[in-house]
Every structure is written in C-alpha cells, then in structure tokens.
C-alpha cells in the first residue's frame, strides 16, 4: 500500500493514532471523572449522578435522563472564544449524549439525571471524539453500570489519502473528516458524522479505519480504569 510510505505533517503513519494519555478519577468533587490528552487536545470530563433531576418535570418515570454539556474554555483555541455556549457546543453536547446513551443502563435509575460535563482546556482537532472517550471512562469511574465502554476517534482523507485520527491541521485542510464512536463489545456505532466529500467506498473505508482506532482506544480506556482500580486497592491496603 503506497499510503504506508507517505507521511503526515506530524510524521505519523496513515493508520496511526496520536499519543493518548487517559487518567481517571482526577476531580475530587465529581462522582466520576477523567482527563484525556489526545495529541495536543486536553480535556477534563466530570460525571455527576445519578442524582435528582432539577427541574423535576424533565425527569422520566422509568429511566434516568442523560445530559451532556460540551464546553471549550476561552483560552482553548486561537483566537480566544467567547465564554458562552456556541451553536457548535450545543450540537456536540447532543451527539455526545446519543453516543453515550446506548452504553448506559439508564433504566436502573428512574427519575434521576446523570450529568456529563466536558471541559476542553486545549483543542487540537477531534475534541468531540476525545470527549466521548473520556466521558465513558468517567462514567465507569462514577460507578454507573454500563453495557459497554464507548471509544471514539475520527478517520478522514487528506491529499487523497485515507488517514486515522486527524489533527487540527488535517481537519482544516483535508478533504473529509469522519468522527466515529463505537461500542467494541456490542459492535455498534453510536456516533457517526461526516464533513467533506468522499466516494461511498472511501466513506466505508474511513468508518472501518475509525473502528479499528476505537478498538485500540478501548484498550487504553481499560488500562486507565485498571490503573485507577489498582491505585485504590493499594490505598485501601495502605490504609489497613
């Protein structure tokens, strides 16, 4: 495959993820939390809940309501962003909710709400995928029963090449961007968007490549959770 030789701006191979660092349980106040670095993206996700819903009339009698809020810090981009929510923020909050909902046993918490807050400290392309990845870890950290984890990353096309995990530059100057979220054990795509122009076959290849990426990220999520679990066990032992 000629793509194997061609190199990207940041030197990665076409099917190579950016360096990813996931840490869970970073926020003492939150019921669950996670911090992710994916390339230069830096995002913190907090989970509060299950807890009582306010205002009450938004609650559902037989299941919990998942609410997701995506927010970029004013200093996360260049130029500075206004602190209020943009239309893009609202849309991303919505697709995050759709991406995470299928993985949660919401029916176990009637009348409750589960709140997921993603705060982007630095943005470098692919923040919605990184936010979903971190949110899934934060949900487990909060002890919320899950059908599966949700891992997310994008694939796309630049200068004719199909590539995995676009950075900011590739997102801006590439031909297409396909963010995907995926539940590996249940084999279901829970986020799918596309921007740009792709032949249907290319689109299929992008989705398949993104799913491969998600499977790799899934391993990193599990490691992060295990690491945290071991720390806790350690602490408990030390505390004995």
């Amino acid at each position, binding site marked *: 495959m000629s793509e194997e030789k061609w190199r990207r701006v940041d030197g990665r191979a076409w099917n190579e993820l950016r360096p990813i660092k996931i840490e869970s349980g970073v926020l003492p106040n939150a019921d669950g939390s996670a911090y992710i670095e994916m390339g230069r993206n830096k995002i913190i996700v907090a989970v509060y809940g299950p807890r009582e819903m306010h205002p009450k009339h938004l609650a559902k009698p037989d299941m919990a309501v998942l609410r997701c809020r995506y927010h970029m810090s004013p200093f996360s981009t260049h130029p500075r962003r206004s602190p209020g929510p943009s*239309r893009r923020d609202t*849309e991303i909050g919505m*697709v995050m909710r*759709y991406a995470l909902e299928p993985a949660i046993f919401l029916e176990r918490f009637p009348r409750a709400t589960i709140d997921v807050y993603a705060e982007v400290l630095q943005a470098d392309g692919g923040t919605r995928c990184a936010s979903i990845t971190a949110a899934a870890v934060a949900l487990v950290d909060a002890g919320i029963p899950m059908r599966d984890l949700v891992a997310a990353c994008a694939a796309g096309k630049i200068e004719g090449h199909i590539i995995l995990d676009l950075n900011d530059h590739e997102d801006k100057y590439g031909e297409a961007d396909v963010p995907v979220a995926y539940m590996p054990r249940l084999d*279901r*795509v829970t986020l799918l968007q*596309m921007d740009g122009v792709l*032949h249907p076959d290319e689109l299929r290849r992008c989705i398949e490549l993104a799913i491969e990426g998600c499977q790799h990220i899934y391993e990193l999520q599990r490691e992060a959770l295990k690491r945290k679990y071991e720390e806790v066990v350690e602490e408990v032992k030390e505390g004995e």
Partner: protein
Amino acid sequence: MSRLSIIPKLKRRKILDAIASGKRMDGRGLEEYREISVRRGVVEKAEGSAEARIGDTWVVAGVKIEIGEPFEDTPDEGILVCSADFAPVASPTFEPGPPDEASIELARVVDRGIRSSDALSLKDLCLIPGRKVYVIYIDLCILNHAGNLLDAASLAAVAALMEAKKPIYEVRDGEVYPTGEVEPLKLRRLPIAVSMAKIGDVIVLDPTFDEEEVMDTRITVTVDEEGNVCAVQKSGPQGLSVEEIWKAIEIAVNKAPMLREKLEAAL
C-alpha cells in the same frame, strides 16, 4: 428505545407491526418518499427563496445577501450563515424562543451539506480581501412539522440558492459601490439530504413525525450529483451496526437522483 419511556409504547408497537408487514402506517413502502414538491420564488423581496413540501412537512427558505467583513482566518472568502427557526406555527410542541438543540442541528447539517459539497465558491464571494465580502444568509422557516424536516429544509435551501441573485458591486479606492445590477449566485453542486430512521431492525426512508417519535436513531446522508457523500449525521439514542450504515449509504445514493430531479424541475 430509550426515549420512549413516556410516549406510548403502543404507538411503537403498531408502527413496528406495520413495518413487519412491509407497509408503513400511511401505506408507503419502506424505502418510499411521501409526495415531494419544490417551488421557487415564493418570497419576491428576498434575494432568493423557495418552499419544499414532503407530505405535510412544509419548509420555506429565504436567501438574503449583504456586505460584511470576512472572518480573520479566511480574509478572501465570503461568509455563509445558515439558521433555522422552528416557528411555533409549525407544531403544538414548538415554543417561541431562542433556537433549541433540534433547530441548531437542522441548520448545521443543512449548512454542512452545502459547505462540504462546495456548492458555493466562497472565494468568488470576496470583494476586497480582508475588508469586504458577500454574506449569504440562508434562513429556514418551518411552517408545518410532519417529520423529516431535514430533507425538506435541505431541498428548500438549495432551491433558494439556485434562484438567488446577488447585487453587483464596483470596487473603487478601497470602497464598494452598488451598480444596481444583479447576477445569479453560481451554484456548482446540488447536495441532496436523504434521511432514514432505524426502527427496531428496519430502516425506513423519509420518516413521519410519529415514526421519528418512536425511532431508535436517524441517519442522514447528503449526496452530490456524482454520487459522492458530502455529509453524514447520525442522530438518536441507539447504535447502528456497520451493515445498517452500509445500507443507509446505499439507499441515499440510490434515492438522491429522484430528489435532484424534483429540485431541477422546480419553477
């Protein structure tokens, strides 16, 4: 199914039963659109306008063209702004107020289809780099919501752009002066949005309001005249298998030419 907690599950049951028999509640086949009509020039005072109807769904799009300053990071490009108003005339559930999640999504997906397909060359809409460019506003006014707003809004928006005329300006000493003449916006592509709902294990085309209320998820695939995909949006609380995605793409690519015909035939 997760959103179904309050809405009668009975309705879902009925819709699923109908689908299982290969016919939908309104008698349509699974991959069949309701009647589609597109009409251009409905608001003469706008620079471009059109209405699209899919069954009882009814959307009006208006294009207004003004002069403004370009964004800092694209000093030599015109600006495209797409907004949607879920006017309270359109549904007992719409309330007056600022745009909500659904109307923001609608506008952003229509915008993405037009922008990604490069339907409009934004570079051609620059008058003085860094200082004066055309600003193209597409405003979507929903008049009746009977399901599948996205495809109707997309048809109306593209039809309004097809018919839009921009005022010609003369550039002199770093200022722009209207010449009084107009010329058509050059529309290079006609992106077509095709939306499907997944209900149970079945994918149905052009969902009605009731079908949307009980669906597991929606997928919209926007297609250009060469059969390329230029926008995708999955929207809804359930996942899709890859086979379902391949099928949705295929349906969209197959159905788009029929909608494009309606668009091109519109007066």
